[in-house]
């Protein structure tokens, strides 16, 4: 191969199931004939094994920024390092084979079977046939499609949700350390979308890939992201932080407008009950609402409101483990008030 040392896989980190660190260093994309650059001196570090969501309005350059990582769009200047290797020194096609790519339109090849679609990158990488077959079956299992049933079907014989599962499987074919996802679940109906999101998060807990996820839906960003980069025009980063921190402390009005109404409720949805101390289960709790320990404070609040009570019983494996009160929920919001508030007027919130 033409790559200098074949380190596009991040020196084999992909084999351990871990992602690679991506560093964008002063990256600029200037299209000829346009006054303002599409991406203006973007620098950011995407930690290995995390999902980083680029969120912003259409045309803010988030997709352009993402596509420069696999060089579908060539940067005008700046460096892109994947585990320390400058992507610009690699042969582009070879480079892209080691970066999973999932797009909104899915883009399965209609004239190839599911197995052929999933195995395509492995075939380009000259894997032998039995290895490809095993890998395809493994991946189809991973995304919840029975290989024996789906292997030899054609894409048009699958529903949209199933097709995007295949899209994810295809992107994982040669176990790339990095995955780029461009509004991957944007074209599916809300129910399928939620299923796909949850399953992808479940997958990611095992895979620990480095994932750059582009969306214009802030709620999806909150759900999917370990970190969120809120972008505005020319891909300038307004805020780059964890979902909790962004909700607790939006950098400015732009970010606030993105969060929309109900910021505190959205924050509660990110706070797991399991991280808070519980009271004893009150006696005579028959009338109290229940909530699972794996759920969020928002779920607990919802149950309390629905039942008209100020206390909810927390269940673990369907057995009462403790209880949570409305005051606990209020306290949680206030205790998570960050100390790094940039705007002093918010400190007392």
């Amino acid at each position, binding site marked *: 191969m033409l790559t200098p040392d074949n380190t596009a896989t991040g020196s084999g980190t992909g084999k351990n199931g871990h992602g690679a660190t991506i560093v964008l260093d002063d990256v600029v994309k200037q299209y000829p004939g346009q006054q303002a650059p599409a991406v203006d001196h973007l620098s950011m570090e995407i930690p290995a094994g995390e999902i980083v969501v680029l969120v912003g309005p259409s045309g803010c350059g988030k997709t352009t920024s993402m596509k420069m990582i696999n060089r579908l769009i060539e940067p005008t200047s700046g460096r892109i390092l994947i585990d320390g290797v400058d992507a610009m020194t690699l042969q582009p096609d070879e480079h892209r084979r080691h970066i999973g790519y999932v797009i909104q339109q899915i883009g399965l*090849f209609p004239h190839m079977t599911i197995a052929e679609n999933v195995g395509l990158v492995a075939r380009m990488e000259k894997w032998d046939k039995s290895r490809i077959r095993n890998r395809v079956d493994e991946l189809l299992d991973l995304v919840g499609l029975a290989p024996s049933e789906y292997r030899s079907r054609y894409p*048009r014989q699958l*529903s949209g949700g*199933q097709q995007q599962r295949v899209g994810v499987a295809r992107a994982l074919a040669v176990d790339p350390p990095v995955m780029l996802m461009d509004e991957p679940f944007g074209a599916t109906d809300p129910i399928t979308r939620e299923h796909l999101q*949850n399953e992808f998060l479940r997958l990611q*807990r095992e895979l620990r890939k480095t994932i750059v996820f582009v969306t214009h839906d802030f709620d999806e960003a909150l759900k*999917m992201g370990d970190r969120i980069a809120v972008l505005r025009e020319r891909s300038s980063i307004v805020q780059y932080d*964890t979902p909790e921190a962004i909700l607790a402390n939006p950098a400015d009005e732009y970010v606030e407008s993105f969060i929309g109404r109900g910021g505190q409720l959205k924050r509660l*949805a990110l706070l797991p009950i399991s991280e808070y101390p519980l009271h004893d289960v009150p006696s005579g709790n028959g009338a109290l609402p229940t909530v699972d320990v794996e759920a969020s404070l928002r779920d607990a609040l919802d149950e309390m409101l629905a039942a008209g009570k100020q206390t909810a019983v927390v269940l673990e494996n369907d057995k009462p483990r403790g209880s949570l009160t409305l005051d606990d929920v209020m306290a949680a919001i206030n205790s998570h008030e960050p100390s790094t508030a940039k705007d002093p007027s918010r400190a007392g919130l």
Partner: protein
Amino acid sequence: MATTDQAARQEPATTGVAGTPPPPKAERRWSFGLLIRPVFLAVVLLLLYWYVHSQTLDSIEKRSLNQHAILTTLAQSIKLSVVGTAITIAIAVPLGLLLTRRGARLITPLALGLGNLGQAIPSIGLLVLIAFWRGNGFATAIFALVAYSVLPVLRNTIVGLEQVDPALIEAGRGMGMSRLAILFRVELPLAVPVILAGIRTALVLTFATSTLATFIGAGGLGNGLVAGIKLDRTDVVLTYGVLAAALALFADWVGGLAENYLRPRGM
């Protein structure tokens, strides 16, 4: 981590499939409908044979209506048409392919314009014009037939390649396929049905037009037609006219078969 706990909470009961999968569609390629055309043609030709056989032929008619004359001109017609179509494909498909590459967009209208010109000129006029330049004979006839039938193949190749969903090309590039690999593994296979439709049109055009080759001494079933008209022999005209029509219809049927069988699976 917040997201993972949240995911656990919202985990659907099934990790299975969302939505019910449509049942696998059987790939239907062969049907008895495909037999209608050849059976019909065989019946027509048998009726023709029976009719001509029942007539008493004079010496002029006998010169055209005998096994040797018919088989020779039939073979000439087939040769003209097959060679003409083959050359048409060999020129038009690669040309269409080149014209859809990046950087060639500017000359596409020019190429299509030339193709249009070839087809817009009445076929007999084109044939005679080219004969002025190249002289009579087989090669000239082929030249004219190709000029006449290049357009449908060229146009369909371009349209076929351009109608390929750009998302597929984007996906292919994102997966690390080279541009050449995308062309041969994605674009061309997906354009095949449209290209074949163009080839089928060209095939019929060529077979029909090949009857005119007689005017520049290239033979073919046109010989019998012209002789029959000039000498006022209805049976000769009828025989050669039906043969020429049957041949074109048969060529169209073969083209249809090709479309049916060469179409990529899964579409």
